């Protein structure tokens, strides 16, 4: 078992290096100089610009931290590979670098202050996904071809096809604006995150619309998986045996069918947690949510590469660890995987 885990951990290395390398190349291909961007329309003077490049290791320096120049008198830019080695070196010591645009703030501090919000939002979304997804899927399967089944199928089709940010905007329009106008401000849901001590709503109200938006697509898939799994299980021989023994339909579903049907759904939802943390960019942007997703979006548009690299690095590690946990638990349950029997190494 230990050997299997070790093998998997060693496999992290190439994946990790590959992803960060791709990002590093992208950073050099995308137009726009982040240092020039800092001051906006007002151009930086040459010395300040150079100081900023030195501070961010974008130009070569001597041991005293003074910039080095080529024969023409221009500062020598640090080659990409060198910056990459520097980045990975820093990373191994837990240093994600310093943001370009957020003067002087370290990337790890920024991400640490943002993750709690993304995690909390993801947890609420997972709860919605679990309760609504499994519930709707069950109703759909049990009352097959009924009005409810058709409704669930229809709604899930729409949700799967609908971009999350658009759903978010529709929800804002309806619950935040129309409803408020219609009730004269008596009832509505907050549409932008405001966690200040002066917020008029209790904190939970702010979660409702973003969490629904974030959960929408996954909930639809969870409902569909639940429906098909339950239907499949209901056709199994042991269910027929159970029914033949005279158990009620209700008992059969609750005590025999559900447990087995739930396994794939729960696996799906578990894996989805990682995906939500990564996929919160659109939702957080629409709702002004102070999490990692919105921060990453802003970093991309302002070419704040250290933040982009940092947040992607964290997500990559997170997803790899979650995958490892899932795979190890499978390996624990099924010895064939441990001993190298054919199995896809997700």
């Amino acid at each position, binding site marked *: 078992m230990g050997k299997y885990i070790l093998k998997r951990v060693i496999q992290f290395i190439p994946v990790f290096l590959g992803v960060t390398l791709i990002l590093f190349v992208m950073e050099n291909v995308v137009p726009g100089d982040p240092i020039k*961007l800092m001051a906006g329309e007002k151009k930086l003077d040459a010395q300040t610009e150079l100081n*900023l490049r030195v501070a961010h290791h974008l130009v070569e320096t001597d041991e005293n931290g003074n910039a080095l120049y080529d024969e023409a008198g221009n500062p020598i830019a640090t080659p990409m590979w060198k910056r990459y080695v520097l980045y990975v070196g820093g990373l191994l010591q837990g240093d994600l670098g310093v943001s370009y645009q957020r003067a002087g703030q370290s990337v790890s501090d920024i991400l640490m202050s943002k993750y709690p919000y993304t995690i909390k939002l993801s947890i609420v979304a997972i709860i919605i996904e679990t309760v609504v997804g499994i519930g709707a899927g069950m109703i759909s399967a049990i009352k097959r071809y009924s009005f409810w089944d058709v409704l669930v199928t229809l709604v899930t089709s729409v949700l799967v096809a609908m971009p999350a940010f658009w759903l978010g905007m529709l929800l804002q329009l309806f619950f935040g604006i129309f409803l408020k106008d219609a009730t004269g401000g008596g009832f509505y849901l907050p549409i932008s995150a*405001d966690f200040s001590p*002066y917020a008029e709503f209790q904190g939970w109200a702010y979660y409702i619309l973003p969490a629904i938006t974030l959960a929408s697509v996954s909930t639809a898939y969870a409902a569909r998986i639940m429906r098909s799994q339950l239907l499949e299980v209901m056709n199994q021989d042991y269910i027929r045996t159970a029914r033949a023994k005279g158990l009620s339909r209700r008992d059969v579903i609750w005590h025999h069918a559900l447990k087995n049907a739930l396994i794939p759904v729960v696996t799906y939802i578990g894996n989805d947690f990682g995906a939500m943390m990564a996929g919160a960019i659109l939702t957080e942007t629409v709702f*002004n949510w102070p999490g990692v997703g919105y921060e990453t979006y802003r970093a991309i548009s302002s070419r704040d590469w250290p933040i982009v690299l940092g947040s992607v690095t964290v997500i990559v590690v997170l997803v790899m660890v979650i995958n490892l946990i899932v795979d190890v638990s499978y390996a624990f349950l099924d010895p064939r995987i441990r001993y190298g029997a054919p199995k896809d190494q997700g």
Partner: protein
Amino acid sequence: MALDKTGGVSRRTFVKGGLAASALAALAACKNASTSTDSSTTTGGTDQAASGGTLKFYINDPVAIDPYNVQESEGTQVEHILFDSLVNYDWDKEDYVAKACEKWEVSDDGTEFTFTLKDATFHNGDKVDSASFKRGWERLADPKMTTPGEIGYHISPVAGYDDMVSGAATEISGLTCPDDKTFVVKLSYPMADFLAVCAHPGLAPVPQAALDDADAFLLAPIGNGPFQMDGKWESGQYINVKRFDDYYGDAPKLDAVNFSIQKDPDTAFREFEAGNIDFCQLLTGRIKEGLEKYGESEDGYTVTPGKQGLIGAESSIYYLCVNVDDPVMSDINLRHAISLAINRQNIVDTLFEGVRKPADCVFPPIIDEDSSNVWEYCAYDVDKAKQILADNGLEGTEVTLSYNSGGGHEDIMSIVQGDLEAVGLTVTQNSQEWAAYLSGLTDGNFQIARLGWIADYPTMDNFIYPNFYSTADNNYSRYNSPEVDAAINKARAIVDEDERKAAFRAINQQIADDLPIIPIMFYAHNHVGSEKVESLYYSPQGLAGLASASLKV
């Protein structure tokens, strides 16, 4: 960019209402409440009266609130109520007034400024002495900061600045502290307008804590201003500040300010309508509607109940930058014709509901209003434009208009394109993403590009030098006129206010014929306050005077 405006209109009305007395009473009551919460004999009613309330103010997430790097309006707004610089511009008196300093003296040659400081303390109890100013100014130029500041250029006239910013020195030799109360600034060349620079919020004093714990200071700066941080800056969410009770100046009426960070003006306005924000922007395109609903302020700068909408001219200009090195655009006749062909009033009326002003020179009226400033070629004269093109065989010339996508520039550029095509030019639009657009500007890879200039300080110099001096950083048009350079050098050294103004007016006319930029319009702010606001002044530099604002309680 920008100055405080304690001396604004609100302060006047404030004083009429008996500011001194009420503020003292409020302060006394406040102290009373905080020291005797347990002995409930007298405080009940006093508490009520003492409460100045919390004003909720919309901003975008700032770049920095630490003075060493305040550059955009949002960070400046927060920073300048946490910190006081030496002097302050009073828009009412149209002159500088002492703030953190008691008085100042300028040497006859305009190169040495001596400030005598007031007795004051930082929010952590440290004394504000001359060393704290030196410390604060040197941080602007320190290349060894985790991220060096970007606003050091403001103090570049100070002797020794270049050595420090290039790493050759660890101090700025031109800044000296003969004693705790005296701060002396020596310039490397005469610059009579340097007092305006001293009003910049970035030139504030900082306590030793700024060096000892720079990371903490970044998110919770300790200043000498009327408000102090209440917790730290929660990026993307809020910044809270509360009244600083040991402030040396007039005590603010407000108990606290909550800077509510929203991602854009639309979201902020919805929160305003929901009653969660007290001050934000009126949405472009719905300005007139907003003014009808909330009432229009009389002076355009002060919110009072029932007159809550603000339309006020600002010290900034929107212009087209012409690349004078470009083979096509170097033809001065073409530049004349283009400028004459643009219907500026039409742009202002159709896109900005008439609230902005067409630009006829480089100085916004709030900076200098003088009939001699007007540029001949800023008139709208289609026939003359056509005539110039015909006389010089320029019909059908192809020109490219560059601009950054988003921000409504498409609309402006499309109107300009229509105007230019109407006189027989062939126009191509080149819309680029912001980052790529800036690179193009820096590399000189454009013919005509849009730009805006917001004054760092309300001086004529600040509109001329950065944009037209041949070696100035912001001179994107690559304008190079030895006569203009010489005239600027001369004008900057004139100590007499009126003479200096006259000199800058003359320079403005020197540039007028060359048209290195084509002025389009002067910005105006369009903001709105809630009914809860009793008085709030918003300056032509786009900064709210929160230290003198009050809420209805």
